């Protein structure tokens, strides 16, 4: 486009000429722009400057351990609302450094189970496991003299409300630990006539939904806690019940570990390892005749024929790892 290019050159030339002619004015910052930047502050910016010098002076430097959020005009409790114009946004509490260290010590040093620590402090089992894993990584880095981003962690923690754990006394729970995943079998409405005299329990309700569905009491993350509460109800002293709870939890964790080991052994039994100079070849035996009725079962090994592979379509790309190897 020769004419357009030529005209833009001419215009740019005119702009620079004006700048040279009036040097006292605000200079053009971007040489390609002919519009001079605004010589004065906008009203909002001016007011912000004024506020910053008067009321906002306390926010210049952060002091103390708690985050200092801007107060809203409604004079409410603003300790967990970072945005004064949005009272519905509340920042969730996070565990502070000391609390995470306590969790790690309990599990790795004192040998307590993840479930017991989760029940004691009211932290989700998955979070407890994640804390232990990340703490292990941190300690590994410290041992290897790798630099840690401590100032960053400190800055982020100072901007969020934190939850403290006192190891020697009872603490308020950090979060709800007995939340249940809504099973799709329970999403249906069923008309299930029963006699009024019948004692219809959670087990019966689960069976009404599906014969293989476990009851809610068994699906909660800590079914041993229910047993403990039952025993306390029946008159067993609390210390005894909690001791029995710890043993039950230890037993369940041991069973889970055994299951894991058995699975690994089974996998290893099916695998033949052949070492060559460069690589190890791992041959895994499988039954290729398990292909389902139409030969297109989902469990068939190998790339499938005649079915679209949706790994690149929107929404099917798994970017976040869902399991820990």
């Amino acid at each position, binding site marked *: 486009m020769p004419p357009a290019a030529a005209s833009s050159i001419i215009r740019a030339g005119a702009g620079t000429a004006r700048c040279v002619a009036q040097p006292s004015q605000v200079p053009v910052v971007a040489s390609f722009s002919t519009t001079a930047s605004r010589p004065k502050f906008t009203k909002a910016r001016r007011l912000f400057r004024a506020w910053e010098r008067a009321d906002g002076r306390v926010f210049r430097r952060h002091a103390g351990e708690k985050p200092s959020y801007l107060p809203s005009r409604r004079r409410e409790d603003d300790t967990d609302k970072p945005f004064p114009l949005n009272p519905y946004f509340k920042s969730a509490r996070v565990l502070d450094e000391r609390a995470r260290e306590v969790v790690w010590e309990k599990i790795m040093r004192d040998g307590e189970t993840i479930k017991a620590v989760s029940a004691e402090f009211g932290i989700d089992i998955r979070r407890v496991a994640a804390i232990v894993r990340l703490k292990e990584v941190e300690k590994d880095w410290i041992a290897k003299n790798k630099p840690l981003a401590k100032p960053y962690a400190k800055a982020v923690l100072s901007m969020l409300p934190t939850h403290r754990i006192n190891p020697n006394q009872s603490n308020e729970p950090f979060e709800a630990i007995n939340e249940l995943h809504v099973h799709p079998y329970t999403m249906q409405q069923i008309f299930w006539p029963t006699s009024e005299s019948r004692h219809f329990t959670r087990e019966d309700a689960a069976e009404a939904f599906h014969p293989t569905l476990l009851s809610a009491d068994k699906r909660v993350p800590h079914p041993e806690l229910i047993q403990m509460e039952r025993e306390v109800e029946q008159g067993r002293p609390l210390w005894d019940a909690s001791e029995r709870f710890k043993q039950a939890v230890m037993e369940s964790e041991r069973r889970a570990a055994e299951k894991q080991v058995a699975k690994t052994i089974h996998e290893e039994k099916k695998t033949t390892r052949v070492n060559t100079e460069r690589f*190890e*070849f*791992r*041959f895994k035996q499988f039954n290729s005749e398990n292909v389902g009725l139409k030969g297109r079962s989902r469990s*068939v090994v190998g790339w499938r024929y005649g079915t679209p592979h949706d790994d690149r379509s929107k929404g099917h790309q798994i970017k976040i790892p869902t399991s820990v*190897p």
Partner: protein
Amino acid sequence: MVVKIRLARFGRKNSPFYNVVVAHARTARNSKPLEVIGTYDPIPRADPYDDSGRLHKDIKLDAIRARYWIGVGAQPTDTVWRLLSMLGIMEPKYRNTEPRIPPVLPREALPQQNSP
């Protein structure tokens, strides 16, 4: 028609992945085979949490079906032959490593020296 045990390339650009298939020799590479008996991931991978630098390749194979197809006369390609020989299903093919010696030529073929 000859039945072959061969690889069918799936996967994406720069990330190959193979099905080990039993198919008629004259059918197209990725056409529907008689049977899929395994997979072969040619990209060497490291174990998680292992920084020794040792890599491995993952192969899934139904050795029983492979033996059956070999028994009824299916012919593995060289690559599949190499994999099957690791499991002891085929006799391994070795490269000829003997030094190459040119054949002894007959006297008539030697360059003639013209005497003056």
